[in-house]
C-alpha cells in the first residue's frame, strides 16, 4: 500500500479527468508494495482495465 501522501496527491492531480486510469494505477501501487512476480498479473490487469474503460 502506498503511504506517501505526496505520491497519492500527484496521482490524483494527474488523473483527475481519468478515474479509470487512477483506479488502475492504484491497483498497481497496491500490487507493487505487496511483493511477488508481476508480469503476468500486470498483463491481466491492463487488459481488464482497458475493457472496463468508459463502462
Amino acid at each position: 500500500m502506498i503511504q506517501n501522501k505526496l505520491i497519492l496527491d500527484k496521482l490524483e492531480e494527474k488523473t483527475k479527468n481519468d478515474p479509470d486510469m487512477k483506479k488502475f494505477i492504484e491497483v498497481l501501487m497496491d500490487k507493487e508494495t505487496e511483493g511477488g512476480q508481476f508480469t503476468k498479473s500486470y498483463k491481466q490487469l491492463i487488459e481488464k482495465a482497458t475493457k472496463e474503460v468508459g463502462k
Partner: protein
Amino acid sequence: MRFESIKIKNYRQYQDLIVDFNKSSENDLHILIASNGVGKTNLLNAINWCLFGDEPHLANPEESLSICNLQSLEEAKERGEANCNVSIEITASSNYKHISFIREIPVTTATNFAGIEKLKTIIIDQSGKTEIFKGNIADDIINQYLPRKIREYFFFDGEQLHNYFGAKRAGTHVKDSIHEIAQVQAMTNIKNHLNNVARDEYQKTIGKINPKIDEIANRQTDAIKRSENGQKELDQLKDSIQLSKEVITKNDENIAGTGSLVEDNKRYNDAIEELKKLKVKKEQMKAEIQKFVRKYTVLLNTYSINTATYEFIEEKRKKGVLPPDIDIKLLVQSVDDHICVVCEQDINEIVEKHICDKVNKLEVSSEVSHKLVEIKNDVYAAIEQAEHYKDEKKALISKSKEIDDKIQSIEIERDKLFVRISTCSDIKSVEKWMEEKYYNLELLEINNKKLGVIEEQIEKVKQELEAIEREMKKALSESDKCEELKVYLQFTNRAAQIVKEIEQEIMDEVRTKIEKETMELFKKLIWKTHTYSHIELDSNYRLQLFHQKTNASCLGSCSAAERSLLALAFTIALHKVSGHESLLFIDTPVARVSDVNREKFASVLIEVSKAKQIIMAFTPSEYSPEISILFDSVASSKIKLQTDEITTQKEGVQAIC
C-alpha cells in the same frame, strides 16, 4: 506500524521479558532505562533477530556467548531437557491489523549448538480473520512493513549516529534506501514493469505482424539500455566527485594550520642538500687558498730581490754596457775586414769608429748579456705575478666570504624550518594528506569534464528516445492490424507516462522537502541556531551542511554531537516526508549530546511522538534531569530494565513499569 509489545524468552540476558508499549497519552513515546550491561543494545539486537534473523549490534559476533540465556540452558539441562527454546515475539499494529512476528530457535543443552530457526508471521484483520505465514512468505511480509535494507532508518544505535554520513554510506545506498522508504522505488518498479509489458508483450506481438514496428522496437530497446547505462555511469561519477570533494575537505581540515608544513619540510630537506653542496665548495675553496698561499709565499719572498735584479739589469741596459743581440766577435771582425759580416757591404771609417766606441763600452760578453736578458724576463714575470697578489687575494676572500655567508644564511633558515616542522609529530601523515588532496583535485577536474560529456550523451539518447517514441506512435497509427493489442499498448504507455511523471516529480520534491525539513529540525535540535545556513542533498542524497559565514560545506567540522543530531533530524525528516508510518527505536539517543541540546532534543522528540511511535533506551545517567523533566510528564510508558543478578544471583532481566 507501531509495536504493541515485545516478548523475549531465553534470549541472551533476557530469560523471560515482556515489554508493553501501550499508547496511554497523546505522545506515543516510550522510555526504557537500563544500566550498562543490562541489555539495552541487546534489546535492539533482539528486535533485529526477530525480524531479520541477525544481530547487527553485537560488539564482536565471533566471540559472543550462545544466543540462549545461560541460566535457562543450565536449568533446562537440570530438568533433563535436550533443548532450550529461544523465542522473540513482536506484536505490532498497522491499518487496523494486528501482526505478530515470532522467531524461535532451539539450542541443545548438551553442546549449546543452535538448531534451525523458525519464523512465523500472524496477521489478524479487523474482522478477526487470521492468516499464518511461515518461512520465506513470513520474511516477505516483514519486508513489506519494515524493509530489511532500510532498517537502519528505524532501529539505530545513538552512539553510532555521528558516523551516519561517513564513508560507508558511499554509493547509491542512501538514495536507494530513501526511494524505498518514500516509495519512489515502487513507482520506478511500476514504470519498469509497465514498460516491460508494453515492449515484451504488446510491441513484440504487433512487431511480428508489422516488421517496421519490430525494427523501431529494437532501436527503442537499444536506446533505453544506453540511457540506463549512461545514467548508471553518471551516478557513479557524481558519487566519485562527491567522494573527492569530501576527501579534499577532510584533508584540508587535517592540514589546517599545517598548510605550509609540507612546503617547509621540503625546504628543510632542500636546505640540507644545499648545505652539503656548499660545504664541498668550501673545501675546494680551502684547497684553492692553500695553493694561493704556496704560490705567493715564494713570489712575495723573492719580490725585493727580483725587483733589485730587474732594476740592475735594466740600468745596465740603459747605460749601454750590455752587448747587442749580435755577437761582439762579429762586430770586431767587421771592423777588421771593413765589410759588414751581416749585410756584406763596405763600412767606412766613421762607422768603424762608432762600432769601436760601442765595443769598448761593453762590460760583459754576449753570452753573459744573453743570460742577463733571460734572467730579466723571468724576474719581470715573477714581479708582475707578485703584483697580482692583492687583487687575487681580494677575489679569493670575497669568494670564500660569499660561500660562508650563504652557508650561514641557509643554516639559519634550516634551524628556523626545523623548529617549525618539529611542532608536527607526524609529518608523514601531513605529506600523505597533501598528496591525497592533490590527487583528488586532479581526479575532480577529470571527473567534472567526464560528467559534462556523459550528461550530453544522456541528453542525446533522451532526444533519440523521444524521436523513436514519435516514430513508434506514427507506425502504430498507420498499422490497421491488431487493433486490440494497440489499445492495450496505448493504455499501458499512457499509464507508464503518468507513473514516470509522478516518479520524477516525487524524486525532486522528496529531496527538496527532506532538505528543508532536516534543516528546520536541526535548528530546533541545536543551540547554535545561527551557525548553519542550509542543507543540500545531492542526487545520491549525500548531505552537505553549509556554514552561515563561509557558505561552504562544513559537515566534517561538526562535533560528534552535532553530527548525531543532524542524523536524527535527517531520519525524522525522512520519515515525515515519506509518510512512512514505521516507528523509531533509538538506543542511547543522547550519549554524545550535552545539556542544552538534550532539552532541545527532548522537545523535538515529544513533538514527533505525537504522530509516530518512538521508543528510546537510556542509561540512568543519560536520562538526566534536562530530559526526564520533559519526558516524564508526557511519555506513554517508562520502563526500567533491571537485572535480578544482585538479588537472586541468577541471570535475567526484569521490566518494572
